[in-house]
């Protein structure tokens, strides 16, 4: 990451004012995103608490397109605010949750969904973890089976005539 991004004078490229790209580990980056003009503001909220609650639940799953991995509810970018207003307008117009989601996806594409839709191009993403788990269990199962066959030894070959004679001799000797 270029040190210029740390400089307060340089505007981070392609990143909203909501979340500058950042260089120190983990949460530090997240800390950089927050500013006190936080996300959902009272003036944009819906009068009906039930409708507002629906708007918030929908907002959690919609991505602020100009931010990094931030939902529109958590972002103070202008575009996120626009989307929050659109979601509330649609709810106000009587749309169901699915209709609102479709309305937004039709305009911005799947990219706007923080939970990618289940379809051909995301098959690996959605099924991969479970395939991995089943695969790992199969490997473990194979390991146990190999173990078992490895520990069961083939029965030793029967004694040869010569060996039997020597054994008899030994037994007779010890029997005395």
């Amino acid at each position, binding site marked *: 990451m270029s040190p210029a991004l740390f400089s307060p*004078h340089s505007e981070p490229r392609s990143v909203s004012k909501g979340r500058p790209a950042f260089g120190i580990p*983990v949460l530090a980056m997240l800390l950089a995103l927050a500013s006190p003009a936080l996300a959902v503001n009272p003036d944009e909220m819906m009068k009906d608490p039930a409708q507002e609650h629906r708007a918030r639940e929908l907002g959690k799953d919609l991505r602020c397109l100009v931010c*990094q*991995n931030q939902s529109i509810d*958590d972002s103070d970018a202008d575009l996120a605010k626009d989307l929050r207003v659109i979601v509330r307008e649609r709810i106000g117009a009587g749309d169901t949750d699915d209709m609102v989601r479709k309305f937004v996806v039709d305009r911005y594409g799947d990219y706007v969904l923080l939970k990618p839709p289940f379809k051909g191009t995301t098959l690996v*993403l959605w099924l*991969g973890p479970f395939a991995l788990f089943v695969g790992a269990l199969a490997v473990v199962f194979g390991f146990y089976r190999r173990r078992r066959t490895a520990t069961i030894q083939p029965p030793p070959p029967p004694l040869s005539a010569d060996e039997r004679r020597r054994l008899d001799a030994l037994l007779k000797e010890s029997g005395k």
Partner: protein
Amino acid sequence: MIAEIGHFALVLALCVAVVQAVIPLVGAKRGMGSWMAVAGPASALQFLLIAIAFGALTNAYVTSDFSVMNVAQNSHTDKPMLYKVAGVWSNHEGSLLLWITILALFGYAVTLFGRNLPPGLKSRALAVQAMISVGFLLFILLTSNPFARLEPPPVNGNGLNPMLQDPGLAFHPPFLYLGYVGFSMAFSFAIAALLEGRVDAAWARWVRPWTLAAWVFLTCGIVLGSWWAYYTLGWGGWWYWDPVENASFMPWLAGTALLHSTVVVEKRDALKSWTILLAIVAFGFSLLGTFLVRSGVLTSVHAFATDPARGVFILMLLVLAVGGSFILYAMRAPAMKMGGLFAPVSREGALLLNNVLMATGAATVLLGTLYPLIADALNLGKVSVGPPFFNAVFLPLMAPMVMVMAVAPMMAWKRGDLAGVLDRLKFVAAAALAAGVLVWFLQGGSAGPWWTGAGFALATWLSLGTLIDLAERIRLFQAPAEALGRAIRLPRSAWGMVLAHFGVAVFIVGLTASAAWTTEHIQSQKLGETVMVGGFGVTLKSVEDVPGPNYTASRATFDISRDGESVGVMQPEKRTYRMPPRPTTTAAIRSGMTGDLYVVIGDADPKGGYVTRLYFNPCIPWLWAGGALLVIGGLVSLADRRHRVGAPARAAERRVAA
């Protein structure tokens, strides 16, 4: 001048690291004791030189030497001393230097504590450690020199991002790095074991405590980071499934798996080649995390392009280290001798199942984190993978693991009796079911999310199961009079396990409750107006300007009442920093057993009020308590006599004496 000494020390450290990476390895191969003996002094010298470099940079920050570019870009004379020192690792170059310093420290620790290690293993491990050093020293010297000068020096610096001006900056990154880099120990010893073609109990007895130490540091770092995010971000979230967070979570998952599989290697001499693989993977994830954060490839594709040299360099380092290790593993691991036998239903089998779930969890996080990149590269369209995906896929994988966690410790080694263990847990199962149903009714049935009952049932199952196991170990019910004595004599590693597993249960309570029942009130609040939040009356009394060392705060005073009686005052702040001129919020938090009252003050409203954000976050302190129990459990286990460094020698002596 001091900065140049620091730079020069890094160059010298590189030379020493090259020697340490080559000579002991050749010595170990040819059985030349004097060549192998180079590793010890070299690791000490390397650490000394890198510590000098670190000291030089710290000195530049403390004295505000703005002729050093790094200091000019990230510091300011007004900054409190704590943030001048912590500012050293607040940026790319400095945090890389911290990484290398810790790596050298671990290398030196091998020399310091490893007197009793077999010389071949020790010299090879130190050589591998030095190879990692060479890679990172080249990286810092060629692409990220922290000592670059600025001509002419500016009068003052740009200052530090106000968001980072928090005690969290002083502790979170060092702990995280101690964890990341700590896994290099397991990695170096895994590679050394592959080179030697031998893994034995002495190996595990060395690797286990160091893995445990790294895991404790990493856990501590992640929990501190979450806590920091929680109180600073201003709306009560503590985990976001952000790529940068995932970068620290993947090594944690792999490290947790490694921690449990080393137990099997040590006690039962089994799962050896799997443990070696995990050691490689755990450190591989640490390197990957460093790559993801440092290159900026995930946070912004453009950041990668603006400085491709860094991204490409660290990607090469990653490919070399991990790819090379995997090739070596593929060549050497099949020849390793099979260890002790065990049935699928046994302690070993349960630990193996834990490993499978942990590894799948880590792979899931990896897939989700990298998928947007993969989809973009393969032209599958732009995809976002956010928290809803991870919650939907990762959490179901963890549920069976929590169920196994209560059963596994009761299982016998080699061949367990599952029916018998489940019989001992039948009351626990009933209690878990009852707790789930109770919580479901308390939240008003389907008025809350469906999974709250499941969360509480799992927490009850695990906590009671762990306590029953402890009670049986100390024979609390059979011989209560002797139980205390037995509890004291119980190995500390067993206590560590009990504490850590119990901590996970406590954590699950916090996770479930805070995710399901957080209440939020966002409004424009006038002076004197009261808002009810989580049973508290929150009254805005006043807002006034208060000067800070390098900022001005507008501080609100809220009166808090419960059932009409005043219970205290809360004072959140909105700060505006002078350099750089950026605003931050400081929430006021009132913690209790049942949850946190979380109060944030916003901008003034044209209508004469203030935007206030008031939250009640249930059971949040349980999260931190659970995290603390994990760390304490790790520390207690680390204090176990058998884990103390040097134990391998005593065991060896005993064997000779016998």
